[in-house]
């Protein structure tokens, strides 16, 4: 990977919010913290800020690396940095860990000051709408009245869309990548299987596993393995693993024989070692619930009537979890409402994961779009 033009050493910041946040569910969180990072310089009129919304397993460490940890690059370091498509020479870029996360922001594994114990099962079920409300408070704190752009892929794309609907005056451009206006039944089904794996793990203890000093590793691992299958394309799996056998022969056993099995288990183990099971549950529920058309009788045209932003919608040809067809479902109501919108369908072999990969044409599209945004915010 080319790290020569990385943003370099970064550090995380922490913001405390003491005004209660009322969730969509009616639950109230009296106070919370968000951990975030910023890259680049906020200009004098604070018009060059870009918010990066993360996907299911993402966090605030978007670009650069921490002092003494050169290998720990941000998850979108290829996209965000000096001279990169999301250009930190021009923009003030913010990455945050969403509320309910497990990377430093208040979430189920955080200590509830009321009880002195981790929130665990008591952490409220959160929605994309709640996230946008919590992110807006971070924007307030940083003095950002309106974002030049809100950018996100997958679940992050849903947040970017929600910004344009809930706070239309506070976002000038939306970049919605590899996302959809709601999940299909098939997608919810995948999430349900993932949740079932976690909920059924005897070490889950109804979400309060912290006080038993155990982690529902088996459930989390299964959930991740399933997720991973859906993030890759059939082609890329065939290409990367095919029917390769680790020992070069069948062992007629239930051990790891095929390379794909080895890969999936490795990914599952890696993930289960650091990710919080309750956060995983919350993230998948937020995905399932997102549906801006819901309160408009299923009419997405009406839902998007509130939007004032310009949009760039991007999909990837081999992404079957958030297919190009689903991206078009975002484009259509934008056309109906006469929003400025461009749509690019990127030919990529990497399935849903494509949005995280370096791809010349994909990066050219994002760069071209944001270069114009930069000119606009420089005016």
């Amino acid at each position: 990977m080319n790290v020569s033009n990385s943003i370099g050493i970064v550090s995380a910041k922490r913001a405390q919010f003491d005004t209660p946040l009322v969730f969509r569910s009616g639950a109230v969180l009296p106070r919370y913290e968000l951990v975030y990072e910023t890259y680049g310089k906020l200009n004098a009129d604070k018009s060059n800020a870009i918010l990066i919304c993360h996907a299911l397993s993402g966090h605030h460490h978007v670009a650069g690396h921490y002092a003494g940890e050169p290998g720990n690059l941000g998850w979108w370091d290829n996209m965000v940095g000096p001279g990169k498509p999301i250009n930190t020479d021009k923009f003030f870029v913010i990455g945050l860990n969403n509320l309910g996360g497990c990377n430093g922001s208040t979430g189920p594994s955080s200590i509830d000051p009321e009880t002195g114990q981790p929130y665990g099962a008591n952490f409220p079920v959160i929605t994309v709408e709640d996230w946008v409300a919590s992110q807006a408070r971070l924007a307030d704190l940083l003095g950002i009245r309106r974002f030049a752009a809100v950018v996100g892929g997958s679940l992050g794309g849903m947040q970017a869309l929600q910004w344009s609907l809930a706070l239309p005056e506070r976002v000038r451009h939306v970049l919605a990548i590899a996302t959809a206006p709601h999940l299909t039944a098939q997608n919810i089904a995948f999430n349900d299987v993932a949740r079932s794996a976690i909920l059924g793990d005897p070490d889950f203890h109804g979400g309060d596993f912290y006080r038993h000093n155990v982690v529902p590793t088996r459930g989390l691992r299964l959930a991740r393995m399933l997720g991973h299958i859906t993030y890759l394309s059939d082609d890329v799996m065939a290409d990367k693993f095919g029917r390769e056998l680790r020992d070069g022969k069948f062992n007629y056993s239930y051990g790891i024989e095929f390379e794909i099995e080895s890969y999936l288990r490795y990914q599952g183990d890696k993930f289960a070692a650091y990710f919080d099971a309750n956060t995983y549950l919350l993230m998948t529920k937020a995905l399932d619930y997102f549906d801006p058309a819901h309160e408009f009788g299923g009419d997405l045209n009406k839902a998007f009537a509130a939007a004032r932003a310009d949009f760039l919608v991007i999909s990837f040809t081999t992404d079957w979890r958030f297919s190009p067809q689903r991206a078009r479902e975002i484009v259509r109501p934008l056309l109906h409402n006469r929003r400025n919108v461009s749509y690019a369908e990127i030919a990529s072999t990497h399935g849903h994961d494509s949005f995280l990969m370096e791809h010349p044409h994909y990066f050219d599209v994002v760069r071209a779009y944001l270069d114009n945004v930069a000119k606009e915010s420089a005016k």
Partner: protein
Amino acid sequence: MTRDDIARLAAERPDFAAIAAWIPKGASVLDLGCGDGSLLRYLNETSAAKGYGVEINDLDIVSCIVNGVNVIQNDLDSGLSDFEDNAFDFVILSQTLQATRHTEALIREMLRVGHEGIVSFPNFGYWKNRLRVLLGNMPVSRELPYQWYDTPNVHLCTLHDFEMFCDRYRVAILERRVMTGEREVSLLPNLLGSTAVYRFQRGI
């Protein structure tokens, strides 16, 4: 877009000025096969027209975005299902008709999505083209810059062919401009005109 850019485009693409002359101020347009978005920029400059382009080519998508033109990546031959009935004042097919596969279906889609359609295409009946064929070769010219083996043009036609097509498929032609270069042609247009531009609507 500067005044020079407009002059340059008008010289390079004589059909642009002909099309612009039909577009009233502030009209909504859909440009099918919009390339790098030049026509949409031109129409925005000359008629304050607003709208979207449809294009399949990756490099053109980037160019449109650079040019600040709304572009939707799609294959015209798969239809215009992203667009609603009567969504635009004009749906334009500029120098693209001859490269479409399902021409009849596309014209029908144009008139579903737009109140009026506009097409421009190279006239295969132009005398220089006829002469080339008469002399034994496929024509290669400014309007038809391809060799027979690498041309995207699968449905070339003459003015007469297009008008017969409109008659057959109940497309009502409203206006026609025929030109050679920037010069308007009125005498024997099917023989002396190299480019044709038509404005049409649904017929009865």
